[in-house]
């Protein structure tokens, strides 16, 4: 694929937002979007982890899995790399940058199992991205994810005190809101297509 990393970066934020077009990373998106502050912390943690693990996974894929001809093991290896990296990052941040730990470090364990992280790693392989493209795409996806969760948190704060039918409270109304947000984002998709 020959798309400029810059285009890819913006595309990942708007036109192929990993959350709103692929619906990945829903679990933490729904559970940590009650407040702006924690939504922001989680979003930043996603950007951070996504960029680092995708870069690592790209290296692992092209310098280990491909030469050894074991690309069919990519799912397992990617998951292990993600889990270990997140753990390690958590330990390092907690020890050396306590201030950062208190704002985003505590979210790290939550996103070990966030499927957006894994999803982006798979997309970069399927779409044959180069290393630079991968980093741009991963960072963009993280920012797109942050954007989506911030929007949901904002909307949830607005509708917090509104009358919502009992059956739709919580995840129900959040999914409807997400659906409408996704529709709005589809409006961007004519601009550039990276799928």
């Amino acid at each position, binding site marked *: 694929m020959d798309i400029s990393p810059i285009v890819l970066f913006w595309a990942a934020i708007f036109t192929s937002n990993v959350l709103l077009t692929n619906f990945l990373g829903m679990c933490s998106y729904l559970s940590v979007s*009650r*407040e702006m*502050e*924690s939504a922001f*912390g989680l979003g930043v943690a996603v950007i951070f982890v996504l960029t680092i693990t995708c870069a690592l996974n790209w290296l*692992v894929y092209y310098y*280990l899995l491909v030469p*050894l001809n*074991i690309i069919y*093991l990519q799912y*397992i*290896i990617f998951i*292990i*790399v993600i889990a*270990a990296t997140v*753990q*390690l990052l958590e*330990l*390092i941040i*907690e*020890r050396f940058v*306590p201030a950062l730990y*208190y*704002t985003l470090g*505590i*979210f790290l364990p939550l996103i070990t199992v966030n499927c957006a992280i894994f999803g982006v790693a798979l997309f970069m392989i399927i779409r044959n991205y180069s290393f630079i493209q991968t980093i741009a795409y991963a960072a963009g996806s993280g920012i797109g994810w942050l954007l989506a969760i911030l929007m949901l948190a904002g909307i949830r704060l607005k509708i917090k005190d509104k009358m919502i039918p009992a059956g739709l409270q919580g995840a129900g109304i959040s999914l409807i809101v997400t659906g409408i947000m996704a529709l709005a984002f589809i409006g961007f998709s004519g601009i550039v297509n990276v799928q």
Partner: protein
Amino acid sequence: MFLQILSDIGTASAVTVTLAIILVIAQRYLNDYGDCKISINQKRDVTVKGGSSLLTSLSEQQIYLASACGGRGSCGACKCKVESGGGPLLPTEKPLLSAKELQENIRLACQVKVKTDISIFIPEEIFNIRRYKTVVTEIIDYTYDIKGITFKLLEPDAVDFKAGQYMQLETQPYNKVKQKTMRAYSISSKPEDKNIIQLIIRLVPEGICTTWVHKYLKVGDEVFMTGPYGDFFIRDTDADMIYIAGGSGKAPIKSMLEHLEVVGTNRKMTYFFGARSPEDLYLTEQFKNYEQVFPDFTYVPVLSRCDDGEKWCARTGYIMPYLKEFIRDPQKTEAYMCGSPGMLDACKKELLALGVPNDKIYFDSFA
């Protein structure tokens, strides 16, 4: 082919092992905070190895804060006051703490990590919380879906609790349930029986713990429980008392009344027992008999489904309409309620409407 598979597995394992080793080393050096001192209520100091959560560190010292979610930061039961050394408030705690609690430095013990010396305040009662090894001595079928289970305490062999408090029962893995779980049940025996604990447990369809109790637990089985927990107990005043409890919510009320039978009381008491049909009634003899034991006690079963002419059909439908006739002076009335959140909410609304002060309505919700 076979060799290929083996070498592939080998490579995957090598990657995993390498990462695991890096993590273990990192854990060893990065997560080593040395020995930390926890000062409790400025009276007692315990020294723990830093690096784990306050909740875990305390439980290693046999100090058990309540925790229903097992330290995931979702239930908010493990609140305690952290005076110093707790670090800044985490975004994971904030949603579970009220403005007043934030001001008083209340934190969630499962989220606070012990990294330095730390000073905390916990209610004195918590020192009383222990993990008990018990043996099942009796299982009584009270109704088709409610059992009363008596446990004899083995180690420690005596418990101090207030009538109305609850224990956390530990289930063992069974059938498809692979993990141990903890569930809270009110104690139904009286505090004077220090060597036994009785729990009343209703079978909840698909309930992990209730299914285990109803289908798997036998007399002679060893069971672990921790407790006592909770602030649902009789306030020592001379106000009239209204008890409202249905189903297995009868457990704490049974404990309270059996306790009052021992110590004696002149207070006016009314117990509303809400149930669906006559077959949901149990221990009726015992509670009817209290009308003779106490100077002023009335047992009022209210059945929502009742055919005319059956024995307990004097009052049918919901409990709410019948509360009024048993309240003399709402200002001097305390309400003790235990049951499903729906019933409690409805009854609380009615009690408030009748003029019972909000701070005199005590409840234990099956949430």
